[in-house]
């Protein structure tokens, strides 16, 4: 119940059946499915369509997925370069174009400040008034906040710190060496760009996923998609929590396909060190486990390529493609550096590429677990409350753009059934990971 006093008396809440919060690729995909079903809905967007791509990405970023794979419900890539990789500008144009073709009303410049349960559904407060609705789809993204280790606060004051969300281009950083922390997609790309700018770069490497850009003459995404790995469902994996935590693979998109693994980086002069695990005064401490993480990534890559080769053999692709090959094992320094004193002056900037998390601080409903993570069962959070666009939400591909189509369709079906049957909630009775409000 909302106390009456909290409602601005001059501006009654607007009513709509379904509110979608966020107009990025996931919110737009849901808009498509709601419109197709004739369900009355609106999208609320804090900035403009594709807000994060306009304001929270570095300049040179390109998608990790080739253009042919960039598709949203009802819209496939139709441009001249299916094997290319979109940069920010192209992707923003792609999403703008898609949004213009939707029948969904999109309220831009509308920041949601709170979501609460209401008598017959939800009440959503924004900086431009309140809304009442029966159902809500959260599509605010998985990467709103950087995950930065606590020791960042104790770094010496002369060190410049930036994160993959605030970094834009090399010239923005002070001259001198850079420590990039994290060797997933963001970390390897930023280490590469900064090394190319002529700076000494050290890369702190923990658990990571190594992937070649192309394998046997095809983009790795072609393999993952055709072999069905991207369609693996959330209720089929043995350890879903772990699958959802998987780091993004070491990949880069660009005009010419290339690998961006640790071998490629060390060949360019990037110094590889273990995970950043401690700070003793001004001395950074790196874990002695670099070899273990590299060996583990090599083994996982080998298993994946074995699986892809077996699929190719079973599905008639083997003879049509170049012979199987295996990338060279990861080469590591004979004596990896275990500590660096920032007082030496070599490193002037620490760039955190240590992951992202969504911002759910505006949810005033008890749907977060003890660690602040949203509890949901395949995107169903609570009766009439859904989430889209999180890693492995319903499938391995859920976290990427083309993954939104199937998830939005299925959650749209669930949502339509919920609207039709009111408080009937049988489909979730067995799932403690979705919240049932008292």
């Amino acid at each position, binding site marked *: 119940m909302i106390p009456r006093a909290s409602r601005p008396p001059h501006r009654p809440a607007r009513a709509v059946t379904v509110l979608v919060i966020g107009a990025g690729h996931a919110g737009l995909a849901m808009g498509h499915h709601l419109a197709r079903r004739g369900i009355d809905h609106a999208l609320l967007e804090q900035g403009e369509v594709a807000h994060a791509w306009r304001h929270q990405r570095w300049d040179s970023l390109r998608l990790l997925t080739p253009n042919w794979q960039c598709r949203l419900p009802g819209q496939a890539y139709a441009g001249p370069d299916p094997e290319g990789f979109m940069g920010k500008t192209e992707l923003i144009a792609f999403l703008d174009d898609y949004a213009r073709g939707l029948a969904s009303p999109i309220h831009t410049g509308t920041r949601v400040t709170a979501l609460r349960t209401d008598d017959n559904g939800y009440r959503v407060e924004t900086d431009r008034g309140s809304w009442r609705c029966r159902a809500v789809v959260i599509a605010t993204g998985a990467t709103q906040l950087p995950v930065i280790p606590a020791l960042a606060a104790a770094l010496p004051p002369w060190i410049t710190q930036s994160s993959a969300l605030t970094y834009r281009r090399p010239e923005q950083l002070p001259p001198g060496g850079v420590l990039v922390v994290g060797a997933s997609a963001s970390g390897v790309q930023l280490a590469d760009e900064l090394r190319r700018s002529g700076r000494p770069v050290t890369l702190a490497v923990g*658990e990571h996923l190594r992937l070649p850009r192309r394998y046997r003459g095809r983009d790795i995404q072609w393999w993952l998609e055709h072999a069905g790995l991207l369609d693996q469902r959330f*209720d089929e*994996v*043995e*350890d*879903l*929590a772990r699958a959802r935590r998987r780091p993004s693979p070491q990949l880069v998109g660009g005009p010419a396909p290339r690998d961006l693994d640790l071998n490629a980086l060390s060949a360019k002069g990037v110094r590889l060190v*273990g*995970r950043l*695990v*401690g700070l*003793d005064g001004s001395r950074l*401490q790196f*874990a*002695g*486990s670099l070899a*273990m993480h590299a*060996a*583990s990534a090599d*083994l996982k890559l*080998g*298993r994946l390529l*074995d699986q892809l080769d077996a699929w190719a053999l079973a599905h008639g692709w083997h003879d049509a493609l170049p012979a199987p090959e295996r990338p060279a094992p990861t080469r590591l320094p004979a004596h990896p550096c275990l500590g660096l004193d920032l007082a030496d002056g070599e490193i002037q900037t620490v760039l955190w590429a240590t992951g992202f998390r969504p911002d759910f601080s505006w949810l005033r409903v008890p749907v977060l677990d*003890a660690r602040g993570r949203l509890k949901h*069962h395949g995107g169903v959070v609570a009766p009439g409350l859904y989430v889209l666009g999180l890693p492995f939400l319903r499938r391995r591909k859920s976290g990427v753009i083309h993954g939104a189509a199937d998830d939005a369709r299925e959650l749209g079906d669930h949502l339509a059934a919920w609207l039709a049957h009111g408080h009937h909630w049988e489909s979730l009775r067995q*799932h*403690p*990971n979705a919240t049932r409000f008292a």
Partner: protein
Amino acid sequence: MHTATPTIDETIDNGVNVGALLEAREALAQAQAPEAARFTWRAHCDWVGGTHSRIAVEDFHGLGETQHHQSGFTFAVDHPAVFAAADHGPTPVEYVLIGLAGCLTAGIAAVAQHRGIQLRSIRARVEGDMDIQGILGMDPEVRNGFDDVRVTYEIDADASRAEIEALVAQSQKRSAVYDLLTNPTRVRVALA
């Protein structure tokens, strides 16, 4: 938590009760009581003389209460004759190697059981390199402890080399002693 329970192959027996371990993990996850997962390990040391000490291990804290080993264990620690000592037992750093080997090998057996891999034998050679100029205070640039640790496994199992390599990798990922040796740890030493 929606956790699929892996099927345990009854015909594989490495002597590890993986089912019980998985049940314990599930129980801790359901309990919403993170304290139950907090363990405290302890040992009691009595100096005998010279570099010789005797160390006893009897109880530890876990699952919310004090737990006891089935019987107490005692360990002699000393240094060999080249250190002008009486050699009543292994050196402290050798106990570190013992801990690492024991931890990784237990991990291999558990992971193999979980993955349905029958083990026939596991042997490991564990070596730690040290420059004793550090402990002798001869050169401040030289650290006291190991500067390189190597573990080499010979494993005979019903599995491919890649699968066995994966066992070894996974055991490192879940090993407490491997973690202790590769990451810094806060250590406080005080007078009672």
